[in-house]
């Protein structure tokens, strides 16, 4: 009798862990990958490794290249970005947008921000879909701009692109909120403190810095109210990886035979508002980051992350 009571007590104690087991595993993976991506802090060396994540390659502690920055960095030097494109193709085809949900540092930041106790807002399905096109427009614009910079660099003699200003190597990184958080603000504060001039040189700020801050504040406010807003609407890396969601090997699968209660707990739990119940088998939504929140929410075990072929 006493053993049974003890077992009951343990199961009651462990229930919250059991109910959020995917979230716990994912958080652990996010913390570890955040540490590895910022590995310079722990004495790791910088590597010419490219990952499909949103993170400034020139960040103070960055150990890897962001694939989208690598793409721009090759194009603006008049090269075809074989390496960056192959990373997108291979990682996207195999894992889909899993890297967004599990290893992207800014994804982790967005998850942390979503814990701020505010009433989370949802947008309608058509609006969600339309806003997703903002990222696509951004990607097209940036790639075209990079091609123009690359062409001007290749055709100039001697090779120079200084006329393109700060965005000559990676145009998007000049306003990217992720670069602002992880690189710009760090350098600003570090150099400001070293030079004992934080705030003193406010008159010397250029328009670009104000623009950066404005974009960052806008994105952060959006994330507070709309979880993973940057991921689903604006992130260029997410847009490119989302293209592969329809046929990626790793992906979410719903078993409609098990989904009997008709509750929409999975859709309510989904941070990017994927219409999970509208799918019959494979969930192939461009916004799905395979985060597994729906698996935790489903009491009938109808959802799972699986390998498909």
């Amino acid at each position: 009798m006493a053993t049974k009571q003890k077992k009951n007590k343990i199961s009651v104690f462990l229930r919250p862990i059991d109910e959020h087991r995917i979230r716990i595993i994912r958080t652990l993976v996010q913390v570890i990958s955040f540490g590895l991506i910022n590995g310079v802090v722990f004495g790791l060396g910088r590597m010419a490794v490219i990952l499909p994540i949103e993170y400034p390659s020139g960040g103070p502690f960055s150990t890897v290249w962001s694939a989208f920055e690598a793409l721009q960095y090759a194009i603006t030097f008049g090269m075809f970005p074989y390496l960056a494109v192959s990373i997108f193709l291979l990682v996207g085809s195999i894992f889909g947008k899993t890297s967004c949900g599990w290893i992207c540092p800014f994804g982790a930041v967005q998850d942390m921000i979503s814990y701020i106790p505010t009433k989370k807002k949802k947008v309608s399905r058509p609006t969600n879909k339309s806003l997703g096109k903002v990222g696509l427009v951004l990607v097209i614009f940036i790639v075209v701009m990079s091609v123009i910079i690359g062409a001007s660099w290749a055709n100039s003699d001697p090779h120079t692109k200084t006329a393109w200003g700060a965005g000559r190597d990676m145009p998007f990184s000049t306003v990217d909120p992720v670069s602002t958080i992880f690189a710009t603000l760090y350098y600003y504060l570090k150099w400001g403190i070293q030079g004992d001039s934080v705030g003193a040189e406010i008159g010397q700020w250029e328009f670009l810095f104000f623009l950066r801050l404005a974009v960052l504040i806008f994105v952060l406010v959006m994330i507070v109210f709309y979880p993973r807003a940057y991921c689903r609407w604006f992130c260029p890396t997410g847009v490119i990886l989302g293209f592969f969601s329809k046929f990626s090997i790793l992906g979410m699968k719903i078993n409609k035979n098990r989904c009997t209660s008709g509750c929409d707990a999975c859709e309510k739990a989904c941070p990017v508002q994927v219409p999970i119940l509208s799918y019959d088998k494979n969930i192939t939504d461009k916004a799905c980051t395979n985060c597994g929140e729906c698996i935790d929410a489903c009491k009938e075990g109808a959802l799972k992350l699986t390998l498909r072929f």
Partner: protein
Amino acid sequence: MFSVIMNTRSRIYLIFFLSIGIIFLLIAIVQNQIEHYAIIKDFTGPQIVDFLDTYTTGFPRPPFV
């Protein structure tokens, strides 16, 4: 381990993009494109100062950097 649940069109897309990815990766290796990204390894070199402009333009940089 694999569930055979993907439709034929998706499977063709998957194989196509995986093949292109592998071909591009091989071309990148042959062209030694990784060298282009090796700039990040030498973070104190003069080239990196130029590279950091992307992140640091807009506020004054101290003379010692």
